[in-house]
């Protein structure tokens, strides 16, 4: 729609943003998910300004402080970790790195993997085979080993971490996109577009990509958690994010040894990861319904006839 009708919207109709908001309010669960993610994103952006110091302030008296008490101020409400640092503050500060790294990795692997998959599925030239074989190589190579080698040689940094995480998740998007393209390109409307003279670029971008995208978005929502956890695994091995920087994954790894005595150290960051992924999942499901004209009625106001 964006290509064809930017200036031909009916003047009386509500704007796209309004319509989307209306659809969002009709799906309570999606609304909750969106609100939750919005809170996290705001926390990731503005949180460090507010509680930045508290996150790294050591407080030996508050070591392994249990949650749900206001005795030491609201910042200690979720308890404190082994060095007495308030978990709430660390969650807020950690959100920036966690969400930033995961979003960058997931987004770039979806974009690159999806694009390569579209090409590999549509074209039958030599490079589509090359793309596939490369994907096979990445898939068959243990991803942790690959990450170890790359990060060991290039040195650990956030950029390298994102690249490694993106590359190891690439084949999933590539394979999915290719499989869908193989089916879609035989569809009649693709033939019709070809017979009208549409070039490969137009067919891929205009006719095939919009139908492949919902699957990729759904996968990426699920993949988000995997990426957060593999990032924490790398951090645990000392190849991920370096102290004093930290992420939720690193916090989980940190609290791993204290599960029996101070469960809250690993629990709160774990819960955050889970809720983020869950929200993304719900939201991607909602987006898929919106994107499909045949499913859209589920979110429309259905007014029954009088009887």
């Amino acid at each position, binding site marked *: *729609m964006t*290509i*064809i*009708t930017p200036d*031909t919207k*009916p003047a009386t109709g509500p704007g796209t943003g309004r319509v989307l908001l209306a659809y969002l309010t009709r799906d309570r669960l999606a609304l909750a998910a969106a609100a939750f993610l919005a809170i996290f994103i705001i926390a990731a952006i503005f949180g460090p300004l507010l509680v930045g110091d508290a996150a790294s302030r050591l407080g030996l008296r508050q070591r392994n402080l249990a949650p749900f008490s206001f005795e030491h101020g609201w910042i200690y409400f979720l308890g404190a970790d082994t060095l007495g640092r308030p978990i709430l503050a660390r969650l807020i500060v950690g959100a920036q790195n966690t969400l930033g790294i995961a979003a960058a990795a997931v987004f770039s692997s979806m974009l690159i993997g999806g694009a390569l998959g579209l090409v590999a599925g549509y074209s039958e030239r030599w490079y589509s085979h090359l793309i596939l074989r490369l994907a096979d190589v990445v898939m068959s190579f243990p991803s942790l080993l690959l990450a170890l080698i790359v990060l060991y040689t290039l040195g650990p940094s956030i950029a390298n971490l994102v690249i490694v995480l993106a590359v190891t998740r690439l084949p999933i998007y590539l394979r999915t996109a290719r499989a869908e393209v193989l089916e879609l390109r035989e*569809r*009649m*409307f693709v*033939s*019709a*577009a*070809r*017979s*009208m*003279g*549409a*070039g490969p670029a*137009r067919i891929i971008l*205009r*006719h095939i990509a*919009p*139908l492949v995208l919902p699957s990729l978005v759904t996968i990426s929502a699920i993949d988000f958690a995997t990426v957060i956890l593999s990032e924490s695994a790398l951090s645990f091995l000392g190849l991920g994010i370096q102290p004093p920087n930290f992420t939720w994954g690193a916090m989980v790894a940190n609290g791993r040894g204290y599960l029996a005595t101070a469960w809250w150290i690993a629990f709160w960051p774990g819960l955050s990861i889970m809720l983020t992924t869950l929200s993304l999942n719900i939201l991607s499901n909602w987006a898929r319904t919106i*994107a*499909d*004209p*045949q499913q859209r*009625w589920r979110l*429309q*106001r*259905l*007014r*029954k*006839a009088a*009887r």
Partner: protein
Amino acid sequence: MNQANPILKVESLTVDFLSDNEPVRAVDNVSFHVNRGETLVILGESGSGKSVSTSTVMDLIDCPPGDIVAGTCVFDGVELSRLDAEARRNINGRRIAMIFQDPLAYLNPVYTVGRQIGEVFESHGAGSGKEARAKSIELLRRVGIPEPESRIDYYPHQFSGGQRQRVMIAMAIALKPDILIADEPTTALDVSVQAQILDLLRDLQRETGMALIMITHDLEVAAAMADRVIVMNAGSIVEAGLAREVFSNPQHAYTRRLISALPHGDAAEVSNRRSTTSAGETLLQVENLTKEYVVASGAFAGKRRFRAVDDVSFEVRRGETVGIVGESGSGKSSIARILLRLNEPSSGKAVFAGQDVFRMRGKPLMDFRRKVQMVFQDPYGSMNPRMNVRAIISEPWVIHRDILPRKAWKDRVAELLELVGLKPEHAERYPHQFSGGQRQRIAIARALASEPQLIICDEAVSALDVSIQAQVIELLADLRTRLGLSYIFITHDLPIVRHFADRIMVMKQGRIVEEGPTSTIFSAPRHEYTQSLLRAVPKPKWLVPEERPTAERSVGKTGLRLERTRNGSLAG
């Protein structure tokens, strides 16, 4: 036949489909009934609500988005909406069975037909294992599948279209239902196969005494089958009565328009819409076109060559309509796809406006694709489901930037929509919100958008009801005179080509068996195959004596033979 209480009685049924804001009324206050042993034909164009009303009987409407506002369906004295899902399932399949238009879509491709027929017995507890298999073989034999003992283990794709429909019928009649609902059972089939299927349905009805509700948009089929007929338009019944009376003396204006829409038989000679000007210069010259597929028929059988198109030559002049007639699998669609460069030919030449189509690249090919457009058989499949009508129609202008400035697009879309008989406000809707006939109009509007010289219509009007057919044909004929368009009109429907085409080629198994001016082909067909095609057009039930003349039987047999030879080969 005249029992006091009908087996099915539908009373003031009203069904809505919910969408944003106003609900769309699909069926409005429809009442009908059917007696045992009787054939009721529901006649109407696509989108008139005829399928929805019978789907409600079968509980096939999803609610929401469907919404049954009012009405009752009483089957054999039981009100269906009061029953729970379990009781409904017991009635569906066992007592009310249904067959659909497209058997390939409704048969599961990964199971053998034997297993699928056996499932009917098993799920209703009427036999299993060997017993179900024996019954299935018997059924397949009854519906006229040759060698049922071996073919029971075949998969759906190994049957021809007509045979698949026979398999569907076998599944439907497996438990001797009281009512058989047939939703456009022959629309996807060729004339001679259609005649056999209709014969089969009539025979089965006579044997079992079941009631038959047949949904069709085809007047000839309706006339050939109906005892009683109801005519639907825009969700309501406009006329109901005995078939003979409705057809010979229609009361409602809509019915009258339907019946007078396309002149049949010799009347078509008088009021035809062929081009008046004698044909001009040659636009497209096709020479010795051949398309060969290599089929690996088995591990040791070696490769078999199969010619979908076999040495076809013809020409199309400016302002002329060439009809290509043949059954499915005769290679007529393959010709269309090759001419549009969607498939590459094995050999041959096609010269369009002085240039060889098969050698074109780059700019000449773009020009060619602007000047030659295609209207596909399945309008729904040929449109991107994620694009709205405006995007669909303006696509040629996006591809060929020089046709129209972007500012003019909106008005031109509205203009084209009006030209094909739709409303400008339909531009914001999506393909699935239209009926089949409306979708085909959108497809025609899209084809016209690039101002072509030649339009290839592949069964473009076959799925539309006659009055719409007539309108579309009128439209195409008008455009031909006004814009000097040429058409290649591919169809299996003889009355349409008779009305519209200047010259006709009859194709069979990839070859042209007969070619000539339309009037000659119809008045003096030379080839045996053409003659059999002409004979297979269904005739009104009340004109045909109960014992069928032997001539039509023999047509049935030739058709059967054709089906069998085609089986296993690639469908064109």
